[in-house]
């Protein structure tokens, strides 16, 4: 992944309608006012985008209340997946519900929630006419505290003889079995069961850990039974509540005072974490999952930039700092095992990237692990569309991982349906961010899931590169590019000189010229200086390319050929080169030659001459000389670019 500034230049801003979503520095009150305004104007898509953005930036209880109420106004206007969720509970869940609805909304889910009464979960399940069944949920969550369903194993444990405790454990497991069976008689909805939490510390302290029939041993036994129960039934799932609490820290998870006050056992800071755990089940149940994760390469899959740092310079290994990237690779492989495809979208020369992917010893993922790749200098948004097409999945099934926050914003604005994973600038946190993302959760695994990537790799080898070329052409036509090509004039002199001074990436010789020098060269007959201006369906890019040539006998040498990174990868260079060839031919030249002088930054131009049919003439320490025989050249302006040429007044 090249330097952020360079990446900035290379991006095409597609989403003119969504640029509002990109503004990042509103004060909180302004964002809310903006949303209210959109709602008042009936602009539901904009309200929705702004609401999601608000929730992303301010993820807390207060904002959840705001989001949930505005959602009520929006829900019927948007293509959200509707889902009816029922709670069977022994504790207060109401304060968590606005957060749950906001998180669900962020995943494209519109939740309608029914909450049963306190501790009536058994009646709700066994009574065929209960409010639970009348609600007809798509899923029910059985959220019961261990203290409520198994007092003999928890609060009263010290009073129980070992035999009585063992019997209590068996009784609890049997009860759950009966409830599941009863539930299934009345409903085919999914059932998510909170597993029991082990009290911390255990009733008898460290003594408890020394046998399997201590308090934690018995509770684990019950949980094992619950897990067996879930796997034996279709649509019954276990939520490992103990693991959830442990992850966030048992000492801070509970709030004894709120429990006494309001039967809310969970502290304010962790209501969000409870909501997010429920979401991990709702996402796969609603199918709002990601089927493919598209990753960037530079500074995402490895530390550093392969095009600049080379194989020896990039960081990916078992030691710091490369270890962070290996951890990410392991997270990606875990996704693969669940049937999630991996793909690459990277601005790089293909051979540089492939060499690292195939040969770098630190890589734990190889080319074969990726079902699709777009490694080129083109637009990332277009790459993502093409990847979705190639893999035959919807754009909304993609997730995107890129270290560059600007790239992430661009993709978010242009393709709001994609899940863009937020990561910090610290690679040590990348793996966790991927693992934490709910769109990768799955509740079932099939044989196809496990072989999916291999199937795609096979398919890719069969169909080859033709597929992607066709799509590229469609993209170029779609752009509706129009270019004005003319010799340098007084008006364009400053800009032409500026481009020679500023342009580093797509620049074959990187020769820097002042305005005075350009003016001087343009006066000489053997020198020709061309500029090209480009417009497309999204706007005017201005003067973005310069070519300077010098005639010497039958040979025309390209002294300078450069293109602003704004228009790399759209065949504008082909149009400019074709015109140079034609005008050189018209002037009586037989050969067109040009040097490529490599620098740290001009990798994008390295294959320019080769790709346009030039032959390597000479190679030395400075670079490579390329030659095109003008008589046999088939170079032409691509037909998807409308080229307007202004000839010079004086010709030979």
């Amino acid at each position, binding site marked *: 992944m090249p330097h952020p500034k360079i990446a900035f230049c290379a991006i095409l801003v597609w989403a003119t309608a969504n640029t509002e979503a990109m503004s990042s520095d509103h004060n909180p009150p302004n964002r809310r006012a903006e949303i209210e305004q959109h709602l008042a104007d009936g602009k539901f898509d904009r309200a929705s985008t702004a609401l999601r953005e608000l929730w992303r930036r301010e993820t807390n209880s207060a904002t959840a209340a705001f989001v949930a109420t505005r959602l009520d106004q929006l829900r019927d206007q948007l293509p959200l997946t509707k889902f009816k969720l029922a709670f069977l509970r022994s504790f207060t869940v109401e304060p968590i519900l606005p957060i749950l609805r906001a998180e669900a909304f962020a995943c494209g889910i519109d939740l309608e929630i029914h909450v049963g009464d306190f501790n009536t979960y058994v009646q709700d399940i066994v009574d065929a006419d209960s409010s639970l069944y009348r609600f007809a949920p798509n899923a029910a969550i059985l959220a019961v505290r261990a203290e409520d369903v198994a007092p003999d194993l928890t609060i009263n444990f010290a009073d129980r003889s070992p035999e009585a405790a063992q019997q209590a454990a068996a009784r609890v497991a049997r009860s759950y079995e009966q409830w599941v069976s009863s539930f299934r008689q009345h409903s085919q909805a999914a059932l998510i069961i909170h597993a029991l939490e082990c009290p911390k510390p255990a009733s008898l302290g460290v003594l408890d850990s020394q046998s399997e029939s201590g308090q934690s041993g018995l509770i684990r036994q019950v949980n094992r039974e619950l897990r067996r129960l879930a796997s034996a039934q279709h649509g019954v799932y276990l939520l490992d509540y103990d693991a959830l609490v442990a992850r966030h820290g048992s000492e801070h998870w509970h709030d004894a005072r709120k429990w006494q006050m309001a039967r809310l056992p969970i*502290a304010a800071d962790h209501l969000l974490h409870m909501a997010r755990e429920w979401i991990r089940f709702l996402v796969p149940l609603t199918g709002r999952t990601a089927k493919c994760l598209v990753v960037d390469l530079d500074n995402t899959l490895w530390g550093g930039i392969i095009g600049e740092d080379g194989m020896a310079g990039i960081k990916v290994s078992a030691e710091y700092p490369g270890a962070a990237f290996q951890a990410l690779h392991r997270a990606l492989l875990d996704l693969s095992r669940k049937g999630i495809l991996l793909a690459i979208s990277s601005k790089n020369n293909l051979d540089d990237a492939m060499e690292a992917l195939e040969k770098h010893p630190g890589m734990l993922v190889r080319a074969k692990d990726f079902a699709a790749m777009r490694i080129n200098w083109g637009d990332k948004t277009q790459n993502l569309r093409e990847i979705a097409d190639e893999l035959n999945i919807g754009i909304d099934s993609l997730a995107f991982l890129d270290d560059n926050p600007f790239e992430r914003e661009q993709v978010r604005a242009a393709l709001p349906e994609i899940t863009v994973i937020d990561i910090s600038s610290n690679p040590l946190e990348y793996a966790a961010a991927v693992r934490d993302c709910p769109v990768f959760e799955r509740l079932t695994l099939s044989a196809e899931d496990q072989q999916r990537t291999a199937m795609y790799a096979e398919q890719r080898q069969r169909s080859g590169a033709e597929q992607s070329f066709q799509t590229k052409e469609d993209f170029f036509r779609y752009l509706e590019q129009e270019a004005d090509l003319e010799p340098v004039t007084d008006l364009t002199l400053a800009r032409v000189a500026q481009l020679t001074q500023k342009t580093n990436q797509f620049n074959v010789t990187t020769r820097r010229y002042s305005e005075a020098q350009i003016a001087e060269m343009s006066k000489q007959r053997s020198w020709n200086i061309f500029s090209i201006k480009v417009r497309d369906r999204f706007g005017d890019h201005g003067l973005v390319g310069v070519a300077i040539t010098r005639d010497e006998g039958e040979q025309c040498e390209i002294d300078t050929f450069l293109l602003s990174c704004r228009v790399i990868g759209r065949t504008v260079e082909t149009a400019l080169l074709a015109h140079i060839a034609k005008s050189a031919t018209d002037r009586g030249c037989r050969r067109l030659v040009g040097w490529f002088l490599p620098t740290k930054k001009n990798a994008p131009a390295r294959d320019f001459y080769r790709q346009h049919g030039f032959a390597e003439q000479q190679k030395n320490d400075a670079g490579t000389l390329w030659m095109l025989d003008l008589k046999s050249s088939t170079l032409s302006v691509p037909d998807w670019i409308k080229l307007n040429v202004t000839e010079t007044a004086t010709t030979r």
Partner: protein
Amino acid sequence: MKNEGEELSTFDEVRSIASDILGVPAASLSAASAPATIENWDSVQHLNLVLALEEKFSLQLSPEEIDQMKTLGATAQLIDSKLQASPR
């Protein structure tokens, strides 16, 4: 979970949170706003308000302190004194 924007006073932040939770415009809330004067402010919302404040200011409110939250102004004062006792 921080909001962006300039530094606000404790009362401003309390009011902003109350506005979201109670579903009324911040401009209509004042230091004197109380459950008696705001229709939406029932015991359920009071709990939600408490939780949002605990989350925002990283503190825990005891039942006695929650009882003292009779108006938004009193709430802000309570929070200020707690923050001064142990700065966040």
